[in-house]
Structures are given as C-alpha cells and as structure tokens.
C-alpha cells in the first residue's frame, strides 16, 4: 500500500509502478488483451479451416431436409422435414425426459433422504447403502446396466407382463394409460398444476388461521379436501383415458408407449440423481438445530408433525440451492441417453453433424438449448427459494 500523503512528489515511473491502482488497471488490460488475442486466434483458425473445407459458417443448412427418421417423437416429424424440425424433435424428447426425471427424482430423493432419519434400523441402513453405492458408480455405467442388463430381461411381446390389465411391460418398453389426445393430456397437467397451487395457498391460509386461533381453519381444510376430490375427478373421468390393450399373439395397442430407451434412461437418471438429492435432504435436515426438534416436541407435537411443520420447512432453506444444481445436472446428464439410442437433442445433433459436417453451428445450437433449459430451472428454483427464505420480522 502506497502512501498518498506526499502529493508534492513528482509523478515518476517508479511511483506509478509502486501504485497498486496502476497494476490493477494494467492487469485488467493485459488480461483482456490476452483473451481477445486468443479468441481472435481461434476464430481466425476456425474461419480458415472452415473455408478450406468449404463449409463457411451459417445456419442456412437448417432448412435442408434431414433425410433420417427418428424413432419416437412428441411432435409430428417426417424424414423429409428440415434439420431444425429434427432438432426440435430432439429437444422435445429431452424435455419429456427431464421433466419426468425431475419430478421422480424429487419424490425418490426426498423419500430416501428422510428415510435416513427413520427409527427403523433397516430402512435407515437401506437408505445409507443406496446412497453410498449409487453415488460412487458412474452414471453411464448405470445407464448401460439398466438398458442391457435390467430391461433386456423383460419378456418379449409374446409373453409380456401385465399389471391388472392397465400397464403392460415387454422388452419394447412400457405401455401406460394416456389421455386420448395431446390437448387433453396438457389440460390434465394444467389442472393438476393449478390445483396444486390452489392447495398450497389454501394450506397456508389454514395454517395461518390455525396459528392464530389454535382451533379454526376447518373450512379451509374442507376446501382442500374438496379441491383434491375435484382435481382427482377431472383427472380420472375428464381426460378420456386410453387404456392399453393386449393384442392376440403379443404386442399392445392403445395407451402411451414409453420406449425401452426412454424408460431405461429415466430409471438411470432418477436412480443416480436421487442419491445426491437424498444426501442434500439429509444434510438439510441435519442443519436444523437440535433445539428446534426439542422445542417442537416439548410443545407436544407428534413425531410426523415435528418433521412436517417444524423441521422440513427450515431445512428447505438449505436444501433448495443445491437441489437446483442437481436438477441442472440431471438436465445435462440426460444427454447420456443417446448412448442407449434414445433420440434426445444430443443424439439428433450428432446425426446432424455427421450429415452436414457442421460441428460449430450444431454445437452452438446444443449449447443454447441446454443453457435455456438450465436457465428456466434456475428461475423457477429462485422463485421457490425466495418463498421459503426467512421472513425477517
């Protein structure tokens, strides 16, 4: 640190060199220059190389027909559709995988995390062993294991397994009941989401009254039950479910077929990520100070209520930030599904690159897609995080 008291001294080189401010600016300028030069060097080489190969940078190729077919798709796609449509199909497949993955991971991970506080020694041990085993084995290996060693043992369509005639399992995949049209399915999802939000607020309202009056809040509780019944009724009867039916000689018609690739990828992703979520939940619960447990119990709350009303809400504050990064990991890891032939975005991008020889453009599209997905998850989780933070009084 240089003393600035001696203002009369002439501005000399020595003084400048001693001044930390000079170095700060110089350092930044040098860093910026080096990075810029590097980027210029890379871009220059890239241009030269691409020109030499006759594939100048540009996205016009996206309008050319793709020419390959895609096994499964949430949106309609034909082989002579353009590349951008094929990539869109890949994105839709990734999206379905990620959404289902996040939902299931939350359920399984929280269950496994909470189970590690169980009084039942076996359940406790089971949860610990699960976490210790799964976290230490690479996801890709687990993915291959699920696809080739687990789901390949399912019977062929001729002697498929059926669960009460509603769900069918064979080595092609899993067949589940599904609303008759995509619009109805979306409608169903919407109803559930709206119902869940309404239920959340009703519950908050109920708790508020409950805290204030100790006995009130009954109407809200009945409202909650009514809401549940209503949503359940709409979901069960309003969506015109198509139940899969067995065909003579094997195979299934109707319902929704989840391909084996999808199911195996989903299983591996959920199984793997849940172990990390379980650890996060466990750490979150442990972070709640012991006094909170004791205070809650001394109030006479039964054990489940202690967890639900006192401990878990506090643990949420610690849980949500790392949970966000686990969800992002799941999103990015979903790209591994291409190794078991699930046509998600990376797989389609890879094929597109093979046929067009345009690695840079394809990579940019891929990067943008994942960045957008991660951004959406972060935004949602930030909202959630804000909702559970301490309300300073």
């Amino acid at each position, binding site marked *: 640190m240089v003393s600035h008291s001696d203002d009369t001294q002439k501005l000399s080189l020595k003084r400048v060199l001693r001044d930390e401010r000079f170095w700060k600016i110089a350092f930044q300028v040098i860093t910026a220059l080096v990075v810029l030069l590097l980027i210029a060097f890379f871009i220059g080489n890239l241009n030269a190389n691409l020109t030499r*190969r006759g594939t100048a940078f540009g996205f016009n190729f996206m309008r050319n027909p793709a020419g390959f077919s895609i096994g499964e798709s949430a949106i309609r796609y034909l082989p002579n559709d353009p590349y951008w449509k094929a990539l869109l199909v890949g994105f839709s497949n990734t999206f379905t995988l990620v959404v289902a993955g996040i939902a299931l991971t939350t359920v399984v991970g929280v269950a496994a995390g909470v189970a590690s506080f169980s009084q039942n020694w076996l359940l406790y041990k089971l949860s610990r062993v699960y976490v210790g085993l799964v976290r230490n084995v690479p996801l890709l290996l687990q993915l291959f294991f699920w696809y*080739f060693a687990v789901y*390949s043992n399912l019977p062929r369509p001729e002697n498929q397994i059926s669960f009460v005639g509603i769900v069918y399992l064979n*080595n092609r995949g899993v067949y589940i009941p599904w609303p008759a049209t995509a619009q109805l399915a979306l409608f169903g999802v919407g109803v559930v989401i709206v119902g869940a939000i309404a239920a959340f607020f009703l519950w908050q309202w109920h708790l508020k009254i409950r805290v204030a009056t100790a006995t009130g809040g009954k109407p809200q509780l009945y409202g909650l039950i009514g809401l549940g019944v209503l949503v359940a009724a709409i979901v069960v009867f309003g969506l015109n479910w198509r139940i899969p039916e067995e065909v003579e000689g094997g195979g299934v018609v109707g319902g929704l077929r989840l391909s084996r690739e999808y199911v195996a990828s989903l299983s591996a992703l959920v199984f793997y990520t849940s172990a990390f979520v379980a650890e996060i939940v466990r750490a979150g619960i442990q972070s709640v100070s012991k006094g909170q447990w004791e205070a809650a119990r001394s109030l006479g709350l039964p054990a489940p209520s202690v967890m639900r009303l006192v401990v878990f809400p506090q643990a949420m504050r610690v849980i949500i930030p790392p949970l966000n990064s686990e969800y992002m990991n799941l999103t990015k890891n979903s790209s591994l599904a*291409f190794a078991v*032939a699930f046509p998600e975005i990376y797989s389609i991008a*890879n*094929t597109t690159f093979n046929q067009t020889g345009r690695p840079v453009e394809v990579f940019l599209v891929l990067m943008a897609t994942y960045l957008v997905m991660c951004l959406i998850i972060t935004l949602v989780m930030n909202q959630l995080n804000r909702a559970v933070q301490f309300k300073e009084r």
Partner: protein
Amino acid sequence: MKKWGFLGLAAALTLAACGGSTDTASDGGPGTSGGASRLQTVLSRGQLICGVDGGIPGFSFVDESGAYSGLDVEVCRAVAAALFDDPNAVEFRRLDSTERFTALSGGEVDMLSRNTTWTISRDTSVGMEFAPTTFYDGQGMMVRVDSGITDLEDFAGRAVCVETGTTTELNLTDQMRRLGVEFEPVVFQDADAAYAAYDEGRCEGITSDKSQLIARRSTLPNPDEHTLLEVTMSKEPLGPLTVNNDSAWFDVVKWVTFGLIQAEEFGITSENVEEFLGSDDPNIARFLGEEGTLGTDMGLPNDFMYRVVTHVGNYGEIYERNLGSESEFNLERGLNDLWTNGGLLYAPPFR
C-alpha cells in the same frame, strides 16, 4: 501454511509441465508435412498408421490378446509389407463411423481401411480418394426366421436397429419412404450395441451391409434362427481410402490393393511365391520386381509385391482366411471373385 504454498507451486508446475507433455504427445502422432507426400512421412516414421473399425468380425476385429484380424486389417498389413517388408509395421487405430473422415483428413491416420462405402460425395466434397474396392457389398436386412417377415413392407409399425453416422441409416429411410412404410428406427452410436439390442428382441430387424450381417449372424447365440431378406437396399463397394491431393501416397495404396488381386489372377500365393521367382513370364517377372522398375517408379522397393505376397498372400488367400471357407463365416465369393470367374475383381495391367 507452508504446505499449502507448496501445493500451489506444485499445481502450477503441473500445469506448466502438462502443457509440455501435450507437445511431446502430439509429436508421437503423424504430423502433416507441408507439401511433401504422406509416403515420405510414413517411410521416415517406419510404421503405417491405419484406421480400422475393430468391431466387425471378418473385417477388423480385436481378440482377447489385443491382436487385430480381418480383411480390412490385412489390407493394411499388405501396405505395411510393401513399404517395410514387415506386415506388423502397422499401428491400428480404432475409429467409429462418425470420426473416420476427420481423422484421415486431419492426418491422424495414413489410410482408412474401415468398411467405407465409395460414394461420389465422399470422393468429392468430403475430400477422400478411394482405392480399388476390396469388397462388393449391398445393404441387407436381417430378421428372425420365426418373425414371419419376408419383405420391407412387413416392417410397418415395427422396429429396426441401425447404426448412426452411416449411409445405411439414410438408405433405410429412403427405402421405407419409397414404400410408404412407417417404421421405428432405433439408432445406436455403435454397431455392438445395435446387434446386442437386436439379439434380445428390441428390434424385429437390423440393417447393415450384407457381409456384416452374415459375419454378425455367425456370432449370435443361434445363427440358424436368423435370416437375411432377399432385398438389397443399396450398392456398397467397400475399400481402403486416403486423403485427396496426395497421388504419390494414393498410388501406393491403390497399386498394393490391385496387386493383391493381380497375384491371385497369376496364381501366386504365399506358399508358392518362391517358385515364381525367375519365372520366364515377363508379366510375372515385372510383377515380382525382377524386371523393370514398377516399384521404384512409385517410390517403393522394386520387389514390393513379392514382399506383400510372401507376408500376406494374395486376395483369394486373404478372403478365404477371413471370410471364406477357412473362416467361421464361410461366405461365398460371389461378386468378390476374379473377373475370370464371373466376379467383379479386375486389376489393370502391371506394366
């Protein structure tokens, strides 16, 4: 505190040192010599680097001891024998279908001998140079005998396993579009996974080059349960290739390949090649380098074909050893016979 300072230093040093190791490692690989032919690079290296698949029994396959075998592999060995009089002076590099061309054009390998179909776009826009075809193939479809499938129309609503990055994927789509059949492609990154998935019944059919299908069929648990459909979806001439604009090196690969065919036409085998030395037939004398300067004109020793035949044998021997009667596949010669026997193999004159 001291300890951590040291750790930081060590880390920084590692960074620097690893940067250094990057250079040494890339020195080991083939560098592009500006302007000069790849032939000089290979000769001065004393070893050929050949890109192969490594996962196709009969063409290129790695066994338990890590040794390579197959038709594609022997073509590489023949080139190595011509260059160095040593069929083992070759390093095989396993490449998957998506990276093979970039590996070749980037100079990572000297030549490809990797079940590569000769097409106009690969010859022109991808920038490859195709040596003579060593195997005439066509895309076929393998199904289970008991599936009752007899032609492509039967695939409506059924699944086909296919490997990505290959012409087969596009040919299949084209054929099915022509027939108006809606099918489910299950696209795998590598052939092994595709055959494995077909084997356990994930797909009703698997499509690939017929030779590959036959080779793979013999490796399935019950080969008799699988059959090839009559249909041929495409022409697949497979052969070795080098990169464009290097005719000196391309000539070597091209003429060694032709030489294998010519040797069979002459009836010269690895067993009887000694008897042909000092032959009165000027064609054979030229071929084996006892007359003329066919080899030296190309930048090779004059007896390069003598070396090749001694070490590797002629095309017929290679074929029988890897695909034909001496192999587990027992594949008919068919199109891959000499023109004199009704096949397509025909070498231009050695003169």
